[in-house]
């Protein structure tokens, strides 16, 4: 049976992590379909059809789908699900909100944040903030799986799957979208950036984050933060890297003024190269860093920025 990937999108294109979800799906079955539900989402459906490995795109239109309210999307997925062996979503804030609602309506379990597909019914997923890896097997007829995008390669574009219309489900009428307060940034998105510059409590103020912005811009990097920095109000919540925030795995992760609590390490320890800048040489971040430099970040960061600028 085929696999259904449920794609989040902005109306124009599906999210970048849908390409990762498609790759994960192809490891469960070779026949992969993508559901694009939206309001005026023709372009997004086309972008899904262009992903290699996708056999068919199902496109459902309804005003209720414009803002990804779980109460409205879930019944549609539930209606389509019986034709599939798996329903797959990226484990982002949409997938985490919608997938469990679908699973419960189907009376099946969900495998959260799979990092590896061992076989079509067996998956590896991190537990305890990634301090243990569980291999779990699902006996359910339909398997609901959210996948951690950083652990699956993005499917290439250049495909040309057929786009088929499917009827919308009746709107639930339980919830309405009021508005969004999204962080505006020209920088690369955190979870897909090649380089991430991340700051912690050591920055001591939101004002001081400007220094990291300068370094990030010189490197073409995304900007992240520890929970401590978000809780202190230095930066918005969507900067948070860690167990309960975002998981990143860039080529280079520069942790600045971050002590390295296990909850933070859970979100970044799969990075290829890790740099730690901290004045406390005992900070746990140094235990995972490839290159550590002990000292005053207020001196080191401008020096590093200057070095990058000169290159």
């Amino acid at each position, binding site marked *: 049976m085929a696999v259904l990937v449920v794609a989040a999108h902005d109306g124009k294109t599906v999210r970048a992590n849908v390409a990762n979800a498609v790759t994960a799906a192809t490891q469960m079955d070779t026949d992969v379909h993508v559901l694009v539900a939206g309001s005026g989402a023709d372009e997004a459906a086309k972008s899904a059809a262009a992903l290699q490995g996708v056999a068919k795109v199902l496109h459902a239109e309804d005003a209720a789908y414009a803002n990804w309210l779980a109460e409205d999307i879930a019944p549609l997925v539930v209606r389509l699900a019986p034709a599939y062996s798996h329903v797959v979503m990226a484990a982002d804030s949409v997938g985490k909100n*919608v997938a469990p609602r679908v699973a419960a309506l189907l009376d099946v379990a969900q495998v959260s944040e799979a990092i590896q597909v061992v076989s079509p019914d067996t998956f590896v997923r991190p537990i*305890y903030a990634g301090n243990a890896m569980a291999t779990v097997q699902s006996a359910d007829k339909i398997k609901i799986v959210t996948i951690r995008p950083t652990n699956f390669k993005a499917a290439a574009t250049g495909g040309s799957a057929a786009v088929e219309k499917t009827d919308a489900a009746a709107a639930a009428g339980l919830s309405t979208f009021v508005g969004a*307060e999204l962080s505006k940034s020209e920088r690369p998105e955190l979870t897909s950036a090649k380089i991430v510059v991340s700051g912690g409590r050591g920055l001591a103020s939101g004002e001081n984050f400007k220094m990291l912005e300068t370094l990030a811009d010189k490197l073409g990097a995304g900007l992240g933060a520890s929970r401590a920095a978000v809780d202190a109000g230095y930066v918005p919540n*969507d900067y948070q890297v860690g167990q309960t925030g975002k998981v990143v795995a860039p080529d280079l992760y520069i942790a600045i003024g971050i002590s390295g609590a296990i909850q933070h390490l859970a979100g970044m320890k799969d990075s290829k190269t890790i740099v730690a800048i901290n004045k406390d040489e005992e900070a746990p971040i140094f235990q995972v860093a490839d290159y550590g430099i002990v000292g005053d970040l207020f001196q080191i960061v401008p020096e*590093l920025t200057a070095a990058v600028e000169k290159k």
Partner: protein
Amino acid sequence: MKVLVAVKRVIDYNVKIRVKADNTGVETANVKMSMNPFDEIAVEEALRMKEKGLATEVIAFSAGPVQCQETIRTALAMGADRGVLVQTDAELQPLAVAKLLKAVVDKEQPGLVIVGKQAIDDDSNQTGQMLAALLGWSQGTFANKLNIADGSAEVKREVDGGLENIKIKLPAVITTDLRLNEPRYASLPNIMKAKKKPIEVLAPDALGVDIAPRLKTLKVEEPPKRKAGIKVKTVAELFEKLRNEAGVI
């Protein structure tokens, strides 16, 4: 309106967990256990509703072995009015917990259920959404701010790009994110008082709920260890390593 909060007993967030030698799970013997931190936020939010006159009673629910009574006592010491424990030594997965919660909701008829968005042991992030589905209720997940007014709830949610505001009909299930509030500590007098508050103990069978696990854990392993690297003395040295050794800038 009654508010039901769910509290889970988990290994304390400060404990460095150890995988069992036989790879069947994680060592829990002689390990400090606490209330899941997100559930503390759930309890706090319910208590604030009661203090504002929006809630009449706060009921703390837990499911699991007899020791979960301690977790419920913690919620009672924070200020919850009474507890409900569905006691079982069997493994409980999120769908089973959601079904147990639904059975208790059917009995208690709360106007709002608040749960943590995720438990820090299995990191599933499922139970609240599943409960909302089973009840046919709306869901306000990853709540950063909650306002109750006129039969509905305004929820500010933490999402990938920042924050999002939704308005949902009551009754509803709310799942808490970190910035919703800062949970209070229980005072000594309140800890003493909590000892006298009632905890009702129920059995899954009596609620008519099948709690059989759907996922079989085949093995639990240590993650690959990252080796500590080197310390460099100067920024010039760091830059040179990043450029020529790691090749990342």
